[in-house]
């Protein structure tokens, strides 16, 4: 089984330096891409059916094709690697950032060339200290070797690259809010249109791509479309970094063919549930995805299949809920996160999420009333898609609506029995 993204990553060992990386074929794709036209690189990536790994799953080549090209296009154009990764339960990009920074840089050069960007940023979350060190070193090495800077490998193509570390806000991961953060503003999202591809960072054409998306590019350029599709078990091409956290025997992150089943991830890779714990439900791809339950265990983890099952693949990192964790407490923890991280820009989200948190807290404490469930149902509609300025609030509603669907009895028990049947969640305290 091929693992192009993680083949050179050895946990606990320093990542390959430039020389070592070149020895295993590193930066070959840059040489290759620079001999193609930008349009050819875009078409190759579009045909590979690489879908963005940041959550939405949009075809990467197609996304690039909206960038104005040719001598008339505004300059400079920008490319940004989204390495904010603050969604609870998500920890896959860290593996790539710490494990093989040169692979990211190589992918960024390919992407920047395809859209003719001359300035690029890695937008890295503050907490990833080790990644910051490794990327700084790798950018330095790549520049010394002529892969970055002016006239890269004599091709006439120029690219600057900078590392930017964020100052902690989930919203910075949303692509237009990220651009505001990079411009030194509050990370509020921007109205679309205009789309960032046309008017992004400092008003210039900009592409924001996820780290895992970018890391796939060197391999697609080197090995071609047929190879990339052959890696997958599903219509969504390539491999995927999957992760599992929660009360499983061996939590972790693995690169596997796109489309392995949830059961395979849970039982073979994560080793099944810890002794004494039973499986109750899971969020397939981070905090902003709908719960799936026992009946979904044989669903393949790809964008289409997970959507058909009523959830979203999101980041592909699943969070397992066991039978000893209270579903109300679990949902409350998630809503607390979203309420706290709401940027406050639009009223439904700013006012609605704290309200949801308050109701869940009341239910959790045994002070819930039957009409509270109705109120929560309303919120899942009024904060759902189309009612707020960005996807944060609808994302928050996904675990809530599905918890109300699959675990309604547990919510009702709290209300009827006037206490939490799970002792564990009594310690929940909203933080400052």
């Amino acid at each position, binding site marked *: 089984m091929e693992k192009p993204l993680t083949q050179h990553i050895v946990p606990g060992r320093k990542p390959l330096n430039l020389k070592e990386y070149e020895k295993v074929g590193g930066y070959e794709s840059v040489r290759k891409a620079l001999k193609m036209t930008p349009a050819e690189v875009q078409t190759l990536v579009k045909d590979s059916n690489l879908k963005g790994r940041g959550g939405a799953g949009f075809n990467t080549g197609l996304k690039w094709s909206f960038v104005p090209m040719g001598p008339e296009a505004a300059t400079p154009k920008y490319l940004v690697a989204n390495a904010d990764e603050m969604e609870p339960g998500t920890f896959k990009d860290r593996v790539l950032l710490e494990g093989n920074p040169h692979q990211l840089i190589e992918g960024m050069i390919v992407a920047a060339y395809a859209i003719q960007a001359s300035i690029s940023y890695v937008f890295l979350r503050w907490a990833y200290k080790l990644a910051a060190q490794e990327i700084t070193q790798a950018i330095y090495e790549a520049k010394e070797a002529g892969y970055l800077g002016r006239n890269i490998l004599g091709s006439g193509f120029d690219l600057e690259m900078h590392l930017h570390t964020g*100052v902690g806000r989930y919203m910075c991961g949303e692509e237009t809010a990220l651009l505001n953060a990079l411009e030194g503003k509050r990370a509020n999202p921007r109205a679309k249109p205009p789309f960032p591809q046309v008017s992004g960072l400092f008003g210039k054409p900009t592409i924001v791509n996820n780290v895992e998306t970018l890391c796939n590019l060197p391999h697609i350029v080197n090995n071609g479309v047929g190879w990339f599709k052959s890696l997958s078990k599903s219509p969504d091409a390539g491999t995927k970094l999957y992760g599992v956290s929660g009360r499983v025997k061996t939590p972790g992150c693995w690169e596997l063919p796109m489309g392995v089943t949830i059961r395979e991830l849970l039982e073979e890779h994560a080793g099944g549930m810890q002794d004494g714990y039973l499986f109750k439900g899971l969020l397939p791809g981070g905090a902003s995805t709908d719960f799936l339950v026992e009946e979904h265990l044989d669903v393949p983890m790809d964008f289409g299949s997970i959507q058909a099952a009523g959830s979203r693949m999101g980041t592909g990192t699943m969070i397992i809920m066991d039978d000893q964790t209270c579903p109300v407490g679990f949902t409350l923890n998630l809503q607390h996160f979203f309420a706290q*991280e709401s940027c406050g820009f639009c009223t439904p989200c700013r006012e609605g999420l704290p309200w949801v948190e308050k109701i869940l807290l009341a239910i959790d404490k045994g002070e819930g009333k039957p009409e509270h469930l109705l109120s929560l149902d309303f919120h899942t509609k009024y904060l759902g898609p189309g009612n707020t300025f960005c996807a944060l609030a609808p994302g928050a509603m996904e675990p809530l609506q599905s918890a109300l669907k699959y675990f309604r009895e547990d919510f009702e028990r709290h209300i009827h029995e006037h206490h939490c049947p799970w002792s564990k969640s009594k310690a929940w305290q909203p933080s400052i």
Partner: protein
Amino acid sequence: MLTIEEKHQIDHEIGLVPSPKNACIEALKIVQQSHGWVSDESLQDVAEYVGMSTAELDSVATFYNLIFRRPVGRHVILLCDSISCYVMGYEGIREQLYEKLNIQYGQTTADGRFTLLPNCCLGTCDRAPALMIDNDLYRNLTVEQLDEILSKYT
């Protein structure tokens, strides 16, 4: 007053962006790096340096979780309170920290050694529960490890 060194670093950041204002977050980070936090006075200095009003800069500064507008201790403990750490029992760690340090979230120990803050997912959910002290990440935490971990910071 910004020091020569701080100005030098801020100038470098300003050189990378179209307008000095665009470097304001970087400038706040630079000031926080040397003082531990951003005082009203520092905020004013930075605002003046990059050509913003203090109110405008404060609205940026207070938006971000990790720009500190109040003094913090010599070491900042960021305890992950997100979902995987919740499932794996971070609350036990929090209670122990409350007890050992005799403070709650948002407070600083009497000797100025530690400030304790909750933090969203630290991106190491497969090895939950987790916390960070300054630049150091601790994972797969148990309450038994806390004394040894805390003793490393004076």
